[in-house]
C-alpha cells in the first residue's frame, strides 16, 4: 500500500472531533531509504523515520542538527557545561522515545524540541514537569477549525518565522532572547538592560506582533 499514512492514534476523549492527529506521510517499504544528510535537513521526515523505523541514521542526523544548538541554548540559560551535556542527552533520549507522538498539527520539529528542552531545564530547577495542557484531554475545548497537520506546512511556518526574526531590528531580537533564554520577567530585563519597563514591553510586543503576523497567514487570532 504505497503512500499509506501511519496513523498515530492516541486515546481521544469524546469531545475531540478530529479523527487523525499526527499522521505522518512516508512511504511504506521494508527497509528505510538512505538518509540524505544536508546542511538544512528535512527535520520532519527525520522524526518520521525515527518513529516509523527506529532509524538510527535519521536519529544521528537529528542529533547532528540539534545537539550543538541545544548546548548553545542551555549554556545561555546559565547551565554549567556538564549539566548542559546531561540535559541535552535527556532531550535527545526523549526525541527518540516520543518520536511517534510528534504532532505536526501542534508544532514544527524545532518547536517540539525547544519545548522538550525547556521542560527538561525546568525539571532540573524545580524537580518537576512544567505544567502543560494535554491535547487529548476530554475537558479540552476543541478549536473550531483544526489546523492543517502536514509536515510541509510546519516546515514552511518554521522558515517564515526564522526569516521574520532575521528582519527584526537587532534590539528587538536581543530582548526576545533575554525573555526566552534568560528566564527573566519583563521587569528583570528592564533592570538588566537599563531600559524603561515600558520600552521593554513595547519592543517585545512589537517583535511578537511582527512574528505572529508572519505566522498567522490566514489564521485567526489576535492578542487581546
Amino acid at each position, binding site marked *: 500500500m504505497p503512500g499509506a499514512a501511519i496513523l498515530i492514534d492516541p*486515546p481521544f476523549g469524546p469531545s475531540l472531533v478530529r479523527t487523525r492527529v499526527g499522521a505522518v506521510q512516508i512511504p511504506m517499504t521494508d527497509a528505510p531509504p538512505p538518509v540524505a544528510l544536508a546542511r538544512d535537513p528535512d527535520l520532519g521526515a527525520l522524526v518520521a523515520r525515527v518513529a516509523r523505523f527506529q532509524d*538510527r541514521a535519521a*536519529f*544521528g542526523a537529528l*542529533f*547532528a542538527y*540539534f*545537539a*550543538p*544548538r*541545544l*548546548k*548553545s*541554548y542551555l549554556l*545561555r540559560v546559565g547551565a554549567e557545561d556538564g549539566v548542559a*551535556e546531561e540535559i*541535552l*542527552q535527556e532531550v*535527545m*533520549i526523549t526525541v*527518540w*522515545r516520543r518520536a511517534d507522538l510528534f504532532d505536526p498539527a501542534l*508544532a*514544527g520539529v*524545532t*518547536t*517540539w*524540541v*525547544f519545548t522538550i528542552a525547556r521542560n527538561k531545564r525546568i525539571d532540573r530547577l*524545580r524537580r518537576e514537569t*512544567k*505544567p*502543560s*495542557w*494535554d491535547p487529548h484531554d*476530554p*475537558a*479540552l*475545548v476543541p*478549536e473550531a477549525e483544526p489546523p492543517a497537520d502536514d509536515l510541509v506546512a510546519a516546515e514552511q511556518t*518554521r522558515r517564515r*518565522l*526564522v526569516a521574520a*526574526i532575521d528582519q527584526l531590528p537587532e534590539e528587538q531580537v536581543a530582548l*526576545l*532572547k533575554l*525573555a*526566552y*533564554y534568560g*528566564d527573566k*520577567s*519583563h521587569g528583570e530585563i528592564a533592570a538588566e538592560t537599563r531600559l524603561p519597563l515600558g520600552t521593554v*514591553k513595547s519592543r517585545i510586543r512589537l517583535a*511578537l506582533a511582527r*512574528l505572529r503576523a508572519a*505566522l498567522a497567514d490566514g*489564521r485567526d*487570532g489576535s*492578542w*487581546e
Partner: protein
Amino acid sequence: MSGHHPTEEMLLDHAAGALSRAESVIVATHMALCPTCRRLGLDLDAVGGALLDLAGAAPVRSRCEEILARVDADPPPTPVKAGRWDHETIHLIPQPLRGYLDGDVGGLAWRSINGALAEASLGLTDERRRASLMRIRAGGAMPRHTHGGTEMVLVLAGGFSDETGHYRRGDLALADGSMSHRPVADSDADCLCFAVVEGGLRLPGLVGRLLNLVYRG
C-alpha cells in the same frame, strides 16, 4: 469561547518557562479551555523553536552512540496511569489542574469560609501564592476583599460578576493587590473557581478579620 484572557506577558512567560508553578498551572488550564490562547501559546513556542534554530553551535562532548546505547539499556518509563478521577472531575477540571487534585472534586477537603463560600486548598500553594478551589453558592457573594498581590481566578463552572465584569467557564479574571471587589455568583448555578492569589485574600473590617483567621486556617 471565553472572553477574559491572560496578558500577552503571562503567555510569553509561560512559553519561556519563567512563571511559578501555580501561575503556570492556571495559565495552562485556561489554555485547555481557550483555543485562542492555546494557539497564541503554540506560536510563542514556535518563536522559542526558531530562536533555537538560530542559536549558534556550541561544542558538544556527548556522542550520539552514547545516547543510543542508553536508550537500548533503559526500558522506556511506563506511561502514567489514567482514569483515577470520576466522570464529573474529568469533564469539569482540565489538565494540568486535574493532576494537582488530591481526589475527585466532590471529595476534596472543603472548608466553609462563610455561608456562601467554601475553599479547598491545593498542594500548588507556595511561599508567595495561595492556590485553591473556591465554590460560591448560586446567588451568593464572597466578602469584599483585596489581595496581597496579583489575583488570578479561572472560572471552571457557573459564573460570577464583580465591579470589573461577568466571568464564565474558561474566563481568567485578573486583579492587582489594590483592587477591592465583591464577586457575586450567578443565580442559576454554583460557581467553581481555581484561584491563585499572591499573598492570599485580605478581608477588611471586623467580620473580615475573623474570616481571615478561618481562611488562613
